């Protein structure tokens, strides 16, 4: 049973060894002359502005949250799309009813101005 995983294990060990060897060799042989410019985070040659640990605007969460909802509901459309011919007119009716319900939610968001950025 578990012997089937042996090649994976060998692969894993080899990958770790190889990575360790390359990085170790670099540490031993390569030179290292750090300057201020070299250790700064790279921002297209521009001097960094502030810390990378910035707060994300709250609006971003709102849009992300709404995106999750509409995105995941699509999970039901995929199996329907595969079988749309077999399901016929009734299948189309059912799916569009489902989509209409999502549209009600969308209308609500529009009216409450939840999607406006500012």
């Amino acid at each position, binding site marked *: 049973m578990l012997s089937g995983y042996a090649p994976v294990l060998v692969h894993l060990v080899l990958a770790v060894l190889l990575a360790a060897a390359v990085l170790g060799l670099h540490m031993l042989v390569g030179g290292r002359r750090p300057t201020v410019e070299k250790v700064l985070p790279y921002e297209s040659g521009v001097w960094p502005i502030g810390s990378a640990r910035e707060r994300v605007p709250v609006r971003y969460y709102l849009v992300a949250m709404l995106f999750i909802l509409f995105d995941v509901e699509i999970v039901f459309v995929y199996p329907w799309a595969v079988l749309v011919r077999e399901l016929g007119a009734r299948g189309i009716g059912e799916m569009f009813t489902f989509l209409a319900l999502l549209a009600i939610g969308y*209308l609500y968001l529009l009216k*409450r101005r939840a999607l406006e950025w500012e």
Partner: protein
Amino acid sequence: MTWADLSLIAPELALAAAACAALLQDAWATGPALESRSRGPAAAWIALGGVCAALLLLGVRPAGAAQVGFAGMYVRDGITRVVDLAALAAAGLGVMLSPPYLERFRLPAGEYHALLLLSTAGAMLMGASRNLVLLFLGLEMLSFPLYVLAALARRSRRSQEAGLKYLLLGAFATAFFVYGVALVYGASGTADLSRLGRAPDVPLLHAGVAFLVIGLGFEAALVPFHAWAPDVYEGAPMPATAFMSVIAKVGAFAGLLRLFPQALPQLAPAWGQMLAAIAVATMILGNLAALAQSNVKRLLAYSGVAHAGYILIGIASGGPAGSSAVLYYLLVYVAMNLGAFGVLLLLERRGEEADRVEDLAGLLGRAPWAAVVLAACMVSLAGLPPTAGFIAKLYLFRAALQDHRVALALVGALTSVVSVYYYLRVASVALSAGAADAVAVRHSRFAGVGLALAAAGVLWLGIVPGAITALVQQAVQALR
């Protein structure tokens, strides 16, 4: 899905349609302002219309043999009928009792009513489940709106805290429930409740069922899954507290009823012991903790825990007697608990909820009818005659004795005696002569009618219980 399937879920569809209508109407009327200053009671009327339509659709369907739809996942039988009735009563009273409060504290009316109706539909789905996955869907549909309702007062820190706690603990319990569904499915090869009775008696099945109890026990606030109840009840806006206190019980016990006495009678010795132990712990802890409370919302939270323990007696006893007692108790509980909360909803202390016991002082002088309704509901919650609470407890204890669970009935009776103290303390403060200054009483015809209906239910179910008793006994005939 066929037209027959759709006509089966017509009451749920009516509620969902009304929920969408209320949501859109309010969004159109007030635009981006969630808490606008002027708003009519349009959303309340739409919601009430939805509840009435659902009741009508329930009524026109003949109470005959069980009908099954949606590939055997949904069943409309006697139990569905009574659970629907209880859930719709909770929704109707919840809508009627809240307008004065919503207006005063400027809560978003469209969202409140839409969430209330969707939650009701979830509880009804739980009562009609013939499949574990539909049960799960109903549980989620019941609980998501309740999380949001608890956090509906966006400027109140307590409300936000209540919503967050309810969500985190609720989602945690739900995860156990889903895992339980997966284990039961693995042990029996089916999620169909009507075929679980033939499942092999393997440890995996027992583990799965135990996980399911965690999920449903959380929603019903059974010890040891009750920790959320006091904080959420206290922090949530009062109309949300009132509604969730009854609808969560209706849904959770409908689920337990579908799961234990109906689907797993062959394992009765195993789960009967487990549920009986939980019931004893719940009754004792709920009643003792309620004794020490000075906040009425918190007191009613622990009282809700205690009542969950009483109702669980019926599930643990199983059989037709226990099941019909559970259904009867749910109907009674909706009427008496919403009646009690309905009176509190009329009060206001300096721009805040009047939720301390002493705020009720002198209520008799200023709003005699409200004081009398509150007293009647408290007497009923304590389980004293001639109110419905007495008859309902009688049925439960009789079912326990029939099943030779004397200890269970004894603990139930003793803890009821303890509960008389704290319920009657509230009632006596309300009927006393003193006056709590700074507490104002709002009058509302809408809420008045709701209170009258709740009080009528409490008295009617207590004095002439014949018709409803026949209904619940007919509902569980298939269990014989």
